[in-house]
């Protein structure tokens, strides 16, 4: 790996520190039984990996990880956690041997695969020398958009992005079809406890929605 990309010893130390935090958090998640702590730690995991993505210059990926992984999925998991018990059941001592072997084998295979990866920021790597280079060359004439990520996502590959938008919409639709809109809780809350959940400063009409 070249020092020009990695930025020398300091950046390497930060890399090691962030990856060590990720490792510790992952171990903690695997060993904890309290679902609330697990949800919060998975948010921490996403935030630390977002910081690490920023460090390796994947700014858009890091931003998405911070917004979706640390923000959105933590909140959704929190909502899902409230529907079930607060702690996972204790497990029998040797029930996790099989999954452990599978995980270790997959990890060894992934480590073996990294040998073939080009170094970080290698200009001769397939990603940087093929169609990626062409985009960088023709983007300014074609679209006049300074951010190549945006012009690739929104202009060159806008069919893909239309599909992604439709996927997000379909995901929302699927959840609604399975769980309902959640409006019943609004009506229920208003009917059952019109006073007790009133917050200071909120004006509410009693009997609304019943």
């Amino acid at each position, binding site marked *: 790996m070249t020092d020009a990309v990695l930025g020398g010893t300091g950046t390497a130390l930060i890399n090691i520190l962030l990856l060590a935090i990720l490792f510790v958090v992952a171990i903690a998640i695997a060993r904890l039984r309290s679902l609330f702590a697990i949800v919060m730690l998975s948010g921490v995991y996403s935030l630390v990996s977002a910081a690490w993505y920023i460090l390796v210059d994947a700014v858009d990926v890091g931003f998405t990880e911070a917004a979706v992984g640390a923000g959105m999925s933590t909140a959704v998991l929190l909502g899902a956690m409230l529907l079930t018990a607060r702690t996972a059941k204790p497990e029998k001592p040797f029930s996790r041997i099989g999954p452990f072997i599978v995980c270790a084998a997959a990890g060894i295979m992934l480590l073996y695969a990294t040998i073939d990866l080009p170094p970080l920021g290698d200009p001769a790597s397939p990603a940087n020398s093929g169609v990626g280079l062409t985009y960088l060359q023709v983007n300014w004439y074609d679209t*006049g958009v300074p951010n190549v990520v945006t012009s690739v996502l929104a202009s060159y590959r806008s069919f893909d992005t239309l599909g992604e938008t439709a996927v997000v919409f379909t995901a929302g639709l699927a959840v609604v079809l399975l769980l309902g809109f959640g409006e019943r809780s609004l009506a229920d809350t208003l009917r059952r406890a019109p006073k007790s959940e009133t*917050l*200071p400063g909120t004006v509410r009409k009693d009997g609304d929605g019943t």
Partner: protein
Amino acid sequence: MKGDHHMILRVIAKCLIPLIVIYAFYVQFHGEVGAGGAFQAGVVLAVALILNALVFGLTATMRAVPPWFTRSLSAVGVMVYAGVGVWAMLKGGHYLEYQALFGEGPGGHDGQHAGIIIIEVGVLFAVSGALTTIFYALAGRVAEIRDEDW
């Protein structure tokens, strides 16, 4: 009074939520020049609403931003995106060919800018609407987060 032991949380959330929304629009409208774009902006916008729901209660949030609005917003977003493609076809181009929006030749950028801005608005609507709808559907099944859960 009930709820007073979360006063610090409520005050800080009240200060933070407008900032989060402004940041979402900043990300949205700087997608052409900086990191992030409409997907991230939509998520940040939805997270602002979810933070509001977690701190001030789901009922108050549903009254401010009703569920019918979020699910309509999501569908409208996809229609806005797809509509840009139809617009390009009506002007004689291919589907989603931004050059054709204003009938420009190669090297003309107005159609590209307009097309990208409009589809990003569509993505913002679709993502924030869908994610808020998902949260409402999940959180609407339990009344509130109880104090002992924190």
